[in-house]
């Protein structure tokens, strides 16, 4: 036995053989029955029908809402390949299409379409966003998806009112549940109305917004942009500046026309943060507004205990408005 084998044997938490539990055997034999095998042709038909239902559900998302509840697709329709959430059942293509050509022309076009709007000095930002995050702990990995309605002061200081509605999977959709409200003190590090609109200065502000320094710069910038969009209504001038800034990032690639989880058509952009992770951004081609962000696990480099490819986090920005 090699040295590792000897160590493993010395520290085996369950080294001794156990006697079978006869009571358990009797209980299983008394309460369960073997299922009859299903003919292969029936399994095939079932799989085809199930796949069809998932595709139909994922593509028919946005307007099918009952009782005022908001829904989003449970799978990401990624450039023709449906991708499931991590830790949830669903499609996991063996290979995702690679990011396309340079994103620069598309991002500059978005910057040009972002319409300059006057920013209010007082009042509140009202944001509605669906967030899904992969939570990992010693018990494994699980997804937590919520619809969040947020009210923050435009001034960047005051009280943040947050109402969170859990969302649960139902037949290819994530459906809004009952909400829970809370109010907390708010001190924003990124106030949309005070952000510079020159790309260089904006880059410095976004990189200084507390995103972990060990990550690739594009990931830090996009992380800051997501954080900004989660808390503030981003005006057209700042949105334009953000797209101009990102146009300078060579690792951002164009995905072309894509559909987000709310069924909205937009321009897709992607970049790979190493070999294990891909970020996907979807922007409204007409207004330059950020519609959605997805973080896809391409390879489990340890600790996540998920089967890639799968979506580990996403943000779907549903509505943004200012209130006096």
């Amino acid at each position, binding site marked *: 036995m*090699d040295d590792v084998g000897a160590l493993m044997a010395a520290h085996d938490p369950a080294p001794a053989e156990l006697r079978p539990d006869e009571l358990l055997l009797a209980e299983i034999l008394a309460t369960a029955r073997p299922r009859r095998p299903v003919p292969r042709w029936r399994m095939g038909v079932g799989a085809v029908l199930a796949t069809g239902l998932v595709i139909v559900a994922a593509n028919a998302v946005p307007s099918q809402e009952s009782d005022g509840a908001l829904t989003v697709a449970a799978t990401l329709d990624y450039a023709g390949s449906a991708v499931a959430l991590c830790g949830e059942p669903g499609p996991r293509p063996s290979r995702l299409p690679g990011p396309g050509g340079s994103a620069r022309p598309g991002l500059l076009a978005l910057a040009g379409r972002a319409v300059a709007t006057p920013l209010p000095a007082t009042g509140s930002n009202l944001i509605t966003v669906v967030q899904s995050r992969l939570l990992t702990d*010693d018990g494994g990995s699980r997804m937590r998806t919520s619809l969040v309605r947020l009210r923050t002061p435009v001034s960047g200081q005051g009280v943040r009112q947050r109402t969170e509605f859990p969302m649960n999977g139902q037949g290819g959709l994530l459906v809004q549940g009952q909400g829970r409200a809370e109010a907390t003190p708010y001190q924003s590090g990124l106030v949309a109305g005070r952000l510079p609109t020159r790309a260089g200065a904006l880059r410095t502000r976004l990189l200084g917004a507390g995103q972990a320094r060990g990550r690739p710069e594009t990931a830090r910038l996009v992380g800051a942009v997501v954080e900004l969009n989660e808390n503030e209504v981003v005006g057209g001038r700042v949105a334009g500046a953000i797209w101009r800034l990102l146009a300078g990032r060579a690792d951002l690639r164009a995905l072309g026309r894509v559909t987000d989880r709310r069924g909205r058509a937009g321009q897709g952009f992607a970049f790979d943060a190493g070999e294990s992770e891909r970020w996907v951004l979807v922007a409204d081609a007409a207004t330059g507004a950020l519609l959605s962000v997805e973080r896809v696990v391409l390879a*489990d480099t340890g600790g996540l205990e998920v089967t890639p490819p799968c979506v580990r986090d996403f943000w779907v920005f549903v509505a943004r408005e200012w209130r006096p």
Partner: protein
Amino acid sequence: MTEEDERFAAIYHRNYSCVVRYASRRIDPDVAGDVAARTFADAYRRLAQAPGDESAERVWLLGIARGHVSNERRGRRRRRALDERVMAWRAPAGVPPVDGEVITRLAFHQALGRLPGNDREALRLFYWEGLSVEEAAGVAGCRAGTMATRLSRARTRLREQLRASGFGEGG
């Protein structure tokens, strides 16, 4: 007892210990028995899919157990206090730990815990479950070549981790 029941009882007696110990090495030993119960109840329902070969039968059962271990991990978040680090401190029943032994065990389990999940699982399947590379690949759901690579990489990484924590090889 029907023919099906007899076949299942034979599978159960051959593999009960293996399945309970597999679960004990991955989750709280107190619930390993429950996981084994769910694994065998599931196996009984799926008896028609059980392979005829005894070795393949163990791989099949551990594949089912793997799913139940994952479910158990997800379901026991409220008991975070009983995490793997605490488990590492536990001495075998009836054997009072001595300081050096506890420190050694803690260092080893910390080093093992720092490995990426796939590498850690490769070591567990190969050394603790006593599976061949092909069998371990069957349980983990990957190719034999991939498992061999993970195993080799895991050995190297474990040695590095142990060295980094001042743990002598073979000790």
